[in-house]
């Protein structure tokens, strides 16, 4: 699977969503599932750009997106600050307006929309996020 390197800025989110949609469409996912996959990939890339690469210029995200059987695998690799989604507190989605948290929502959505979200951090090689979802 070829790796595609995107500059780490929000302008690439359109391309990232297009890549995921194309792979998922060819993989036979429903329109509803394709939207979910696009949203999860967008939230993942947005978090890398906003948090892992906060204050960093000329950074890059290396991405792969492929079908293996009936499962889509989306990976994103960055060399920014490590940011483990599993350690982010889940937002209370039933809190009232004044107590509703602004942060943590993207990761919450990634977990809800995908079957599995895993994160590996290595001080030399960087951070790798892997998300998978099986075709229904």
């Amino acid at each position, binding site marked *: 699977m070829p790796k595609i390197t995107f500059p780490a800025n929000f302008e690439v*989110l359109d391309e990232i969503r297009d890549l995921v949609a194309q792979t998922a469409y060819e993989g036979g996912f429903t329109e509803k599932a394709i939207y979910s996959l696009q949203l999860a990939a967008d939230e993942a890339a947005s978090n890398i750009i906003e948090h892992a690469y906060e204050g960093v210029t000329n950074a890059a995200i290396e991405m792969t997106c492929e079908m293996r059987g009936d499962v889509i695998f989306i990976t994103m690799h960055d060399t920014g600050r490590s940011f483990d989604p599993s350690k982010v507190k889940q937002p209370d989605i039933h809190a009232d307006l004044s107590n509703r948290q602004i942060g943590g929502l993207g990761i919450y959505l990634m977990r809800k929309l995908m079957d599995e979200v895993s994160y590996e951090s290595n001080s030399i090689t960087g951070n790798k996020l892997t998300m998978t979802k099986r075709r229904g």
Partner: protein
Amino acid sequence: MEITTQEFKHCDLFKVKGRVDSATAPDFSSALEKANNDGHYKIVIDMSELEYMSSAGFRALLASQRNCKHLGRGELVLVSVPKRIQEALELAGFTELFKTFDNTVAAVGSF
């Protein structure tokens, strides 16, 4: 993303088209903040031509709703929310924070 605004006697109508993500959400936020800064706190968001919205857009809606509802001076309501966006809002628990309407006439008339 493209935003058009229309002022009515009792509320402002915002039509947001295209995609709201981390790249475009700041412009969406700015438009809502400008209305609030002008003293307008009764806001209708027409989503009928919105194709996509990520959590960056949800956060903009949340911040504006807080500002609009502060001191009971107004409210932000949603109109014609596309199915996929509605599902994502439900997943995030946002549907209980916003009244939604099927058409702009009903939404504008609610103020």
